[in-house]
């Protein structure tokens, strides 16, 4: 295909090297290359120590004069609020939930990785770093990942000191378990509720600072706009979701810890309220969105049961430690009681294809293989559309080997949850599972300091893009959220705040007034369209498009089609959506309308990013780029870069900025788990 890419900026070749064709031609313009100018050089093991040392300090007496806004109270936001509060900064913390304790980190089940090597099984900081870069399919930044591995051990220390009740051995010392994609036991856990326990630890630390007066919490508040003055992020416009009041909050620095955007798919394991609005509003104000197409489809979720479904429920990946995944060898067995299918007629396909990792292959591989066997007609459970979308996760062997009590102790709450949702008892009948959207590796672009390309706008946790590459390993999201919140951000934000406090601004500043007016106009627009379709109906339709064309397998034709469909849907939304009620009251339809409007724009960008990336890597599988035996095929010569997208203006094309990924401490290889 000929390629005359529109050019913005003067450093770009009209025909990029090594690029024979360009699927995304006509959908974007190519901008200047970017680089992480903060990334330190030198031996990888010294980089963080050196960088921390070089970052300037803020005198304790000055800290209380510095206002920090943090949006989101999950692990990344809650931990940052607590830590910055303890340090003496003046923190304002925002969440849409009625309490910071309810942020969706709470739903993480399996565990948190740390390179403690308590099992003496050969773990180390370097091995955790290596596993994470490899698991991310060589699309993450090595300096960031090494730092993550480096601070992982401190996280466990901190959480234990806060009273997080991790699982322990009989001697009273901490227990570990293994997780997908690795061959050591480095995962700390609290039964199947690790996220809950870690979040409550961070929440309690944060509430302690509320009592101390260093943190002010604004619950049931939603950030609807970013305020930028003289090129610096200086505050947010938020809506009080109870009274509808539009509030202006000004500060010296803004931190977005607002989580991921998996709900663009409508059905996902995210909470119903999880949304992209805070990040997307920042993107529209100039913050780059990096690798938006990198989505994690989690292999072990409870299958969809019908059209009414509002969300999908994850079954922790830790279940793959003891459960064996299989489908019948013969399609005609798929409707039989699984207990009646003899051993020789079962296909334990992960153990067969990947003998060395077996059921513990990384998530992207486990998900795609589940899709493959179901596409072959060997899925189990009810028909959804033309297929049975489910595979068995069988605990019969584990129950035989360990006894039912031991299995119960490990997984009780998960088994209960499964039974409650499906009405089936997994101690007796194998569970049925199917992949579901779970996490996004993409997010706002940040440098080594976790600062976006907008001065004074920092982004942490799932909301940023930096640590997981194209695929995140299990038990690493909790690690990254807490690493960012407790140990990274507090050490990088001080370099920026050392120049503060910045010039005082007030609410009458033209930029502040403009941001506020934008929010008010948008709300009035939603309420005045008065069309015929509900917000949810648009959200569902968008979700179907995304799942079909930008889900587990993506193709050029499918993505092009999806982009057209999303554009049409967006146009229809803005002329035909119906939002009842008023602006000055609690109005859940109005809240959703704003979120879905942003998801529609994000969905389009995700498809453009997926179209541009003509390789398969991690969670991004392009059907055109696979090996003979159907494994993902990367193209490091063309795509070893971060795709950072700049907003192209209303109706304009996004601008692609490439950041080359350079590895000095690790060699890029095609992943193999065989």
């Amino acid at each position, binding site marked *: 295909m000929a390629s005359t890419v529109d050019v913005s900026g003067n450093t770009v070749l009209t025909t990029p090297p090594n690029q024979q064709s360009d699927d995304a031609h006509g959908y974007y313009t190519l901008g200047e290359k970017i680089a992480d100018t903060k990334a330190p050089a030198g031996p990888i093991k010294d980089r963080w120590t050196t960088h921390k040392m070089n970052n300037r300090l803020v005198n304790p007496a000055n800290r209380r004069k510095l206002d920090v806004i943090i949006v989101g109270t999950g692990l990344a936001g809650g931990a940052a609020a607590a830590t910055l509060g303890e340090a003496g900064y003046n923190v304002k913390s925002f969440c849409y939930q009625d*309490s910071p304790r309810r942020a969706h980190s709470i*739903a993480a089940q399996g565990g948190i990785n740390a390179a403690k090597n308590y099992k003496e099984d050969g773990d180390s900081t370097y091995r955790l770093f290596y596993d994470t870069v490899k698991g991310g399919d060589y699309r993450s930044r090595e300096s960031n990942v090494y730092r993550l591995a480096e601070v992982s051990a401190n996280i466990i220390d901190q959480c234990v000191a806060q009273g997080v009740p991790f699982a322990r051995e*009989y001697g*009273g010392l901490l227990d570990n378990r293994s997780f997908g994609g690795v061959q050591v036991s480095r995962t700390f856990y609290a039964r199947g509720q690790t996220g809950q326990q870690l979040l409550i630890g961070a929440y309690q630390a944060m509430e*302690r600072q509320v009592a101390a007066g260093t943190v002010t919490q604004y619950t049931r508040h939603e950030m609807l706009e970013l305020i930028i003055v003289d090129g610096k992020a200086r505050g947010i416009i938020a809506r009080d979701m109870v009274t509808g009041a539009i509030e202006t909050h000004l500060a010296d620095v803004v931190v977005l810890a607002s989580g991921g955007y998996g709900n663009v798919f409508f059905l996902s394991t995210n909470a119903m309220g999880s949304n992209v609005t805070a990040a997307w509003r920042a993107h529209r104000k100039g913050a780059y969105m990096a690798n938006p197409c990198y989505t994690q489809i989690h292999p072990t979720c409870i299958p969809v049961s019908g059209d009414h479904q509002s969300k999908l429920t994850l079954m922790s990946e830790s279940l793959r430690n003891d459960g064996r995944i299989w489908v019948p060898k013969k399609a005609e067995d798929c409707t039989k009681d699984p207990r009646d299918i003899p051993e020789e007629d079962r296909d334990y396909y992960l153990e067969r294809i990947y003998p060395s990792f077996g059921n513990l292959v990384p998530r992207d591989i486990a998900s795609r293989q589940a899709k493959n066997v179901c596409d072959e007609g060997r899925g189990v459970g009810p028909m959804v559309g033309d297929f049975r979308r489910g595979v068995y996760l069988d605990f019969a062997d584990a129950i035989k080997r360990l006894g039912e009590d031991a299995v119960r102790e490990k997984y009780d709450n998960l088994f209960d949850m499964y039974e409650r949702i499906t009405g089936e008892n997994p101690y007796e009948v194998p569970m049925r599972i199917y992949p579901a959207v779970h996490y996004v590796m993409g997010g706002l672009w940040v440098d080594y300091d976790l600062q976006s390309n907008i001065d004074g706008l920092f982004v942490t946790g799932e909301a940023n893009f930096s640590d997981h590459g194209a695929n995140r390993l299990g038990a690493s999201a909790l690690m990254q959220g807490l690493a960012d919140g407790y140990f990274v951000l507090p050490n990088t934000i001080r370099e920026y705040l050392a120049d503060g406090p910045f010039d005082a601004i007030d609410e009458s500043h033209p930029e502040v007034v403009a941001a506020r007016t934008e929010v008010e106009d948008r709300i009035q627009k939603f309420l005045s369209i008065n069309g015929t379709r509900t917000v949810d109906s648009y959200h569902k339709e968008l979700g179907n498009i995304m799942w079909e064309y930008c889900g587990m397998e993506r193709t050029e034709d499918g993505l092009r089609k999806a982009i057209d469909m999303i554009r049409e849907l967006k146009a229809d939304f803005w002329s035909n959506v119906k939002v009842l*009620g008023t602006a000055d009251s609690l109005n859940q339809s109005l809240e959703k309308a704003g979120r879905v409007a942003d998801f529609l724009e994000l969905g389009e960008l995700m498809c453009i990013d997926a179209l541009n990336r003509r390789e398969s890597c991690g969670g991004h599988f392009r059907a055109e780029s696979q090996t003979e035996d159907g494994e993902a095929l990367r193209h490091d010569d063309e795509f070893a870069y971060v795709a950072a997208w700049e907003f192209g203006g209303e109706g304009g094309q996004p601008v692609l900025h490439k950041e080359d990924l350079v590895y000095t401490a690790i060699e890029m290889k095609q992943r193999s788990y065989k």
Partner: protein
Amino acid sequence: MRLTLKIWRQENASAQGALQTYDLDGISADMSFLEMLDVLNEKLQGEGQEPVAFDHDCREGICGTCSLMINGEAHGPEVTTTCQLHMRSFNDGDTITIEPWRADAFPVVRDLIVDRSAFDRIIQSGGFISANTGSAPEANSVPAPRDKAMRAFNVATCIGCGACVAACPNGSASLFMGAKITHLGELPQGQPERYSRVVDMVAQHDHEGFGGCTNIGECASACPKEIPLDVISQLNKDLRDAMRMGL
């Protein structure tokens, strides 16, 4: 299945509320209770009526956002959260009454949504271990007996939903408070603040307008996480010890 729903509608905190009746058809047994309300809300909006406001978020029983008194029971007839309650627990033709949590300390915000911020303030008064980031010793330097750690975990699974308060005839949050006091009190890290914690939390609890515990036990039977009643005994024991210390 076909249902008759009687739902509490209230415009805002200061407005007068009332139960309103809605007929709903086409509900399947596999739907969750909240998905049934989703269907109702889509229908209401189609008819130009404002949807019923209710709190919900994770829909997997862990965030503690959902609430609802269902036929007079907190979270309905099963031992679980409302979001994990499925319509297979009801029958075709049932009439279901849906109300918000009822407690002085949880004022209604709108329809089925209440204000539970009093729980945050109880935690602020002492429901934590003071351990600044960076100051922690090596995690395995302080072993914690396994049985105590397990008890700590079991009660730390409290999701802060408020069902215990809604179920209590006296509107007491003793189960919520007892769970936190037991969680932190069972761990070696929680000992230094153990007694000041209980005194401060109880004072805040009373200040918020929650009632005292009268040992009825409705709280524990309503708790979706099965927090046992004996955490209240632990609370009282720690409080008595604290009083003896003169705290």
